[in-house]
């Protein structure tokens, strides 16, 4: 085994030397695709912004399937990309085994924590952003019923739902929060038809604000909300522009900033490994306010959100993080 390790090390070092001349950052777009109008697109936007502002160049590839994660990751590292950025928690167990083979390459993973010396793990405080979205939903609701459509049923998405329910109940303790998940597999990130069906079912149960945290599935949710004439909250990217008039807001997760910051730091040679938390205090998560939702957001809402945001940053309001103990005080799954 030691022999093998040495050999692996040598191979990795050789690959690095070969690619050292062009230490471009590499971005691996995850399943769901570059233009999912959500998570991946946000990362892509960040990378594009970096290119525009710095004139730099980066390598990009799109993951073809679940089973090719490892090949794609290794390919990127062996081509000399540094840092190699992967998106989504599904990469965690693969990165755990790939990262030690390329000790001189820095990897950045979004939405998961990988405990390796050459990995930067970027996690977002989605529960905090969702809390604000939940407050706005509760204030906008006239039926005292709001709802949530999740993508794949994983702790990460329950974290969104749990924050949302807490926020809604902080405004109106009697409000009803309906929560549905699209599925239990990665295909649940890309099933707009089912997303729309779930939304219609929630509307029939009285919901008049729906929050979608479902990647590409969300487009179906937002469309159904617009068709049914209820309000919707987008996720990850600012999706307000998609249906002006029915989009209450978007819980924006600045994945683009994570990509931009990592690329920028790598170019300046000061990319730090370890855990990076993006939350309300450093604008890692925000509720989007722009011209597309200005008509729906009341002054009262803005004030309440600003107040809550300040209280969360100062620690006065503690938003429970579902993934910390796999339970939610405000919502049953």
């Amino acid at each position: 085994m030691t022999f093998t390790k040495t050999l692996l090390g040598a191979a990795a070092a050789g690959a690095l030397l070969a690619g050292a001349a062009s230490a471009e950052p590499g971005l691996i777009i995850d399943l769901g695709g570059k233009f999912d109008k959500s998570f991946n697109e946000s990362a892509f936007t960040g990378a594009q912004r970096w290119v525009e502002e710095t004139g730099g160049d980066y390598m990009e590839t799109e993951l073809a399937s679940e089973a090719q994660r490892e090949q794609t990751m290794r390919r990127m590292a062996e081509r000399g990309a540094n840092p190699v950025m992967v998106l989504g928690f599904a990469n965690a167990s693969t990165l755990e085994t790939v990262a030690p083979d390329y000790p001189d390459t820095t990897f950045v993973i979004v939405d998961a924590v990988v405990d390796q010396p050459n990995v930067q793990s970027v996690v977002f405080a989605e529960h905090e952003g969702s809390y604000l979205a939940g407050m706005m939903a509760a204030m906008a609701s006239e039926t005292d019923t709001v709802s949530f459509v999740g993508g794949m049923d994983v702790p990460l998405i329950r974290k969104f739902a749990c924050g949302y329910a807490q926020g809604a109940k902080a405004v109106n303790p009697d409000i009803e929060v309906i929560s549905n998940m699209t599925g239990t597999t990665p295909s649940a990130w890309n099933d707009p038809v089912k997303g729309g069906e779930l939304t219609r079912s929630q509307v029939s149960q009285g919901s008049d604000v729906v929050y979608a945290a479902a990647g590409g599935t969300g487009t179906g949710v937002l469309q159904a909300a617009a068709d049914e004439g209820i309000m919707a909250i987008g996720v990850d990217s600012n999706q307000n522009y998609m249906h002006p008039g029915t989009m209450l807001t978007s819980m924006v997760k600045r994945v683009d900033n994570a990509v931009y910051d990592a690329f920028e730091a790598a170019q300046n040679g000061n990319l730090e490994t370890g855990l990076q938390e993006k939350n309300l205090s450093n604008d890692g998560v925000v509720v989007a306010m722009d011209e597309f939702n200005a008509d729906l957001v009341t002054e009262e809402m803005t004030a309440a959100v600003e107040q809550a945001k300040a209280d969360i940053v100062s620690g006065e309001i503690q938003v429970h993080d579902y993934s910390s103990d796999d339970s939610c005080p405000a919502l049953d799954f």
Partner: protein
Amino acid sequence: MDKLPRWADIALVPFINLALALIVSGLVVALIGQDPFEALAIMVNGAVGSSYGWGYTLYYATNFVFTGLAVAVAFHASLFNIGGEGQAQLGALGVALVCLAVPWPHWTLALPVAILGGALFGAAWAAIPAYLQARRGSHIVITTIMFNFIASALLVYLLISALKAPGMAPETVRFPEGARLPTALEVFGAIGIPFSRTPLNVSFIVALIACWGVWVLIWRTRLGYEIRAFGRSEPAARYAGISPFRITMLAMLISGGLAGLMAVNAVMGEQERLIQDNVLGAGFVGIAVALMGRSHPVGVLLAAILFGALYQGGAELEFETSVPREMVVVIQALVILFTGALDGMVRSPLERVFLTFRKQPKPGLAPETRP
């Protein structure tokens, strides 16, 4: 008498099919504004231009050999098993259970049991459609493809409940170190030949043995003869005392078992854990491989390597150029379309050409021999 000479049947027809597919692919690539020759060069170079390329090509080929043989064996009994996908997924489950059940001390012990596990689970999954065909007359094409969906759903169910590893992704824990198959890097490294790190592993040898085994089975055993006889003509086989039930069951069990073996390569050799999408469409590629390989193990092996090269070259093309991923799938699909579905388009004209060549002397000679 055969309409085509043997060499034309096994070499010329596939070659023309492939050439046509590449020409159409080239046109498609040119249509989206890329240089088709450069694309072809990247694909060829990426697939067979380095030990890295070969490693991946042969790794994918190993998958296709197993699924291709699976389809081929069923073909000989004139059963169209398009359930390779599901059988391979169940095989993956079998292999994963074997690897996770025991803390294996060494891969040489784990491999035979994993082979058994994969084959048994794959065969079991094929047994139900086989029984329904043999006893109830439910068409095997319909039942096997439906079983693909059931297999996929079953695997998803297990991966989010009983087998799920801690964490968020639907996958099992990693297999123990002792169940890790040696890769080509280690095998060649041990004898001093440098080889890139690829997932190519000892399962490739298992695949070669499987090829030989299928050849022996089909052409050198009584069962193989019965399978072929049954496949050529069921009434004749029945008249000769061959039990249709027995042959349908056995052919499908062997077919399913071979498809299940794919997991030894993909799951045990590469992914080292059970994930949801572990077959990667190899079950369906196996149909094209068997068609192109004329259901002969050597043909299957060669066709599998071709498709392995297409997979790997396609991945490389996606990586190196701005040809989008979907385009690579289109190219692969065109090759499958031309070699599989449009086979007759080349074959019939070619047969006519060969027949005219063969007949020509006769009318020419006839008048002279007349008094």
